């Protein structure tokens, strides 16, 4: 156990840091649908009651 942390090993801590970093990096991904396609999707979501 690393003192004053919940991590049991250095590799567990490194795993945590890498996972956090990757998740934040991946949050920046670009959109893939055109405006028209996105509108169609929103229409279906409204029809199904997922969007108001």
């Amino acid at each position: 156990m690393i003192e004053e942390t919940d991590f049991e090993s250095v590799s567990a801590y490194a795993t945590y840091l890498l996972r956090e970093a990757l998740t934040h990096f991946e949050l920046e991904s670009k959109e893939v649908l055109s405006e028209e396609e996105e509108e169609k999707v929103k229409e279906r979501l409204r029809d199904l009651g997922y969007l108001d």
Partner: protein
Amino acid sequence: MISPHGGQLVDRVLKGEARERAEERVHGLPRLDVGDDLAKDVENIAKGVLSPLEGFLGREDYQSVLRSMRLANDVPWTIPMVLDVSEERADRFREGKDVALFHKGKALAIMHLEEKYRYDKEEYARRVFGTTNRAHPGVAKLEEMGEVLLGGKVDLINAPQSRFGKYKLSPFETRVLFKEKGWRTVVGFQTRNVPHLGHEYVQKTALSFVDGIFINPLIGRKKKGDFKDEVILEAYATLIRNYFLKDNAVLAILETEMRYAGPREAIFHAILRKNFGCTHFIVGRDHAGVGDFYDPFAAHRIFEEFPDLGTVPLFFRTFFYCKRCGGVANEKTCPHSQESRVNFSGTRIRKMLSLGEVPPAELMRPEVAEVINRYENPFVE
């Protein structure tokens, strides 16, 4: 929005003229009729649920997934997505040529057959399920599979019919939905059960740290004694309507079979939810387990091997109702003895429901129990 697994959401759904041409072409191609499970796999590949897969695994990817739990390009992938056929049938198809896939008499997809290969079922069972015991439902299914695997990309022509269309969203749709709701962080919850208070506690604990929860019941082939799909859906719709804020919870289905592959399937489930746009994923006790084939926390430990998974697992251990705390608690939050604790025993709840009884309110919401009890038999026979 979180990036899809492998970097890009796959879209192999034929549209417009391309689809019309494919509809005509299939009649001149060698034909392969597939069952419900494979048809759903085809649809999930084409709609991006299984990104970055664009088709069924070829030999190199298959062996890499089996032995390293990664595709040949090192992207994490733990469950072999394969299309099996008998040797006799495989002889009708030629590598480098297209195959027409049909489901229930209707053109499903065109498969661009890249390779045919044999595989070792014993190795598959040992590596994926950790056992070769036929009492394991995954092993039993494997025994019945054909001897040859077909690898190649697929293009979807007609999606299989779904009984639950209004709950069926593609990753493209959930991503738009989450964006519209203003969710930057989303936790995914996999389930194949009706919700009891312990599930709700886990969901709401996770929800406290993120913008929204994506409750995603798995709809598909299950084993005898599991709750029927329609019961699970109706029970969850009732729970959400009565006990969640509309702006923070989304219920949609995932149509695929349970593999009962325990730890490997936990990673697989996390990847699929990442493709739907989930930044976090709840991993429960004995996730995707069956009987006592897996250590209850093996599905937690396996995540240590995948620091590059790109979605954050949230681990939950055992939880229970504590009479002295007056609420749901877990080993970390409750100081009281076993005598004060009521376990969320699935077997006990199941037994009560099968007798038409209403479980006590500390185990299950009465509205949920009422919905389940409306069914004469809520279980798969």
